[in-house]
């Protein structure tokens, strides 16, 4: 009886090992499919045009060249696009960190008439899909005389309803004792918010920074409808125009892939630096 039970368990553990090996084999194969496109992207950006067409699969350029990058940085508008994207991203991220946390704090903590209405309006606004707003946004930006200006590019992105929600949820999860103490000691509402509450909110603020940075760096359709001049073109818009064949004769994949690779770098760096937090942020959103 006990002998047969032992045999069953041993057979079972052999099966477990085999199953683990199979699991890792499948995972590794799928991971290769997910990672390889990015590796070949970087590799191809260092190949000459002819080689990119003749041996697209290879990860090691037979002839290594910086030509695509030289062309992008010295003979195209690419630096302008990059600067614009960086500028917009910094302004939008700063704005969202400040305004989202202000509003999130008020909705979580302050008692004021109309709070329920503001909250309901936020929920309503969040449910409108972004692509539906292409034409509407242009109409208002144009009407306000902001078309083709930094104001039109930055102002509409300066707050986002989802960010307000994240901050509100965070503030609701923090005990009130510390700020009540500050208020009893005579600090005003803003003073309490600025020097007591905000420093405690670092984890949530980092989440907002990540989401805003990624969102505004990758934003495309807002810039399509708010600008037209070359000086205000962002990376997304510029690289999209590259893809559809402007600036290039023939396919010129090394050039396009170099541009795509560079625009991926800042987000990739952000991703790897805050990796753990990004994963936890998505998980946290689910747990709430």
């Amino acid at each position, binding site marked *: 009886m006990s002998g047969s039970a032992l045999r069953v368990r041993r057979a079972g553990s052999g099966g477990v090992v085999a199953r683990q090996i199979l699991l890792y084999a*499948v995972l590794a194969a*799928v991971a290769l499919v*997910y990672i390889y*496109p990015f590796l*070949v992207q970087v590799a*191809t950006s260092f190949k000459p045009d002819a080689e990119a*067409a003749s041996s*697209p*699969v290879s990860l090691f350029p037979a002839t290594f060249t910086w030509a695509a990058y030289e062309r992008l940085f010295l003979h195209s508008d690419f630096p302008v696009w990059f600067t614009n994207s960086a500028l917009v991203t910094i302004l939008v991220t700063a704005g969202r960190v400040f*305004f989202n946390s*202000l509003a999130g704090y*008020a*909705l979580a903590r*302050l*008692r*004021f008439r*109309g*709070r329920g209405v*503001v909250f309901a*309006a936020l929920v309503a*606004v969040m449910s*409108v*899909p972004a*692509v*539906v*707003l*292409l*034409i509407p*946004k*242009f*109409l*208002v930006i*144009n*009407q306000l005389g902001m078309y083709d200006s930094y104001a039109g590019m930055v102002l*509409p992105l*300066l*707050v986002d*309803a*989802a960010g307000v929600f994240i901050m509100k949820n965070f503030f609701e999860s923090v005990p009130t004792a510390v700020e009540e103490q500050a208020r*009893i000691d005579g600090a005003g*509402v*803003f003073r309490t918010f600025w020097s007591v509450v905000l420093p405690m909110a670092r984890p949530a603020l980092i989440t907002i920074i990540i*989401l805003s940075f990624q969102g505004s760096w990758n934003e495309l*359709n807002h810039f399509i409808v708010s600008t037209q001049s070359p000086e205000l073109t962002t*990376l*997304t818009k510029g690289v*999209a125009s590259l*893809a*559809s064949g402007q600036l290039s004769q023939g396919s010129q994949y090394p050039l396009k892939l170099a541009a*795509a*690779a560079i*625009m*991926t770098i800042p*987000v*990739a760096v952000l991703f790897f630096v805050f990796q753990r937090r990004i994963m936890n942020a*998505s*998980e946290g*959103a*689910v747990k*709430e």
Partner: protein
Amino acid sequence: MTASTARSARPRRTGPSGIRRGEGVAGWIFTLPVVIILGVFLFLPVLMALWVSVSDWTGRGSPLSSSVSFVGMDNYAAVTAGGGLAERDFGIALRNNAWYVLLVVPVQTALALLLAVLVNGAALRGKGFFRTAFYFPSVTSSVAITVLWLFLFSTNGVVNRVMSYVGAAGPNWFNDPRGIVHIALGAFGITQPTGALAENRALGVTWWDWLAGPSVAMSAFIAMAVFTTSGTFMLLFLAALQNLGGDVTEAAMVDGANAWQRFWQVTLPQLRPTLFTVLTLGLIGCWQVFDQIYTGTQGAPGKTTLTPAYLSYHSAFLSQEWGQGAAIAFILFAIIVLMTLIQRWALRDRPVSRRRMLMAESVDQAPVGVVR
């Protein structure tokens, strides 16, 4: 003691005092920037676009000027009836996007779930690596991914080269307008529509063409959507899996259920709330195909990658048919809302056994604001 301090803290009746002092004003000042910006750049625009969708504005001057007149539902009629080019284009765009949704939503959901289950089974260190690898495509910009995809699926690109290794001849991906259902039917010798399929039309498109399936070009975009979104949804499933208590699974194990049965009958029912979230987010996202089309194909080949979102943009900004563009946007909005409601109804909680209900309650419902 506490009660007496509380009472003595508000002897006057003129507004709140104590530590609640000043909150009424502060609350509004704190939320004002958000209220103003969202009001001016989200709410007001929707109202203006509603007006444009029922006007004959041609893009010159302000849509609010007196020279612009009310035309009723003409713009909506032009894209949904009337037999013109506008109707046909809208029909084609709906056809393309419907097939896209039909394929992307189930595939990305199933793949995300599969990846989550696999990653969940890996040891701790491996878990981190694979999670990162699968999630990375989701954080990169849609423009960069589209550029990469155009290269991978070009005629002499990576995909066709790899296919040639196993002796298959890959198609001319982004230049191939043939629908994949038509191709499959062609293999059985059916190349021409017959009877009702050829004669009947919906939105200016014959039934035969509605059934064409996504074009080969659109299929490449379908693969791209699965590639970029499965990682995000995997994270949602993974979080839910990690929240599951092991005891129910253990009980099933003791009862002699094998791994397959345990997954379908124990794990999956507990993932229901997450499944609902993933399906809803997927459905909403899939009806908004725009960036890829703008960057990659602009609707070509043969209008088979045209989507309602891109058609709306194209009608307004490039063809100067602003009323029609706005009308398409609102119809699209209605479609998204309708689909979400249908899905909510289809996946509603049916009466289940008491034990199952207790199980479901232990899994937290998921409002998600993080997923793009």
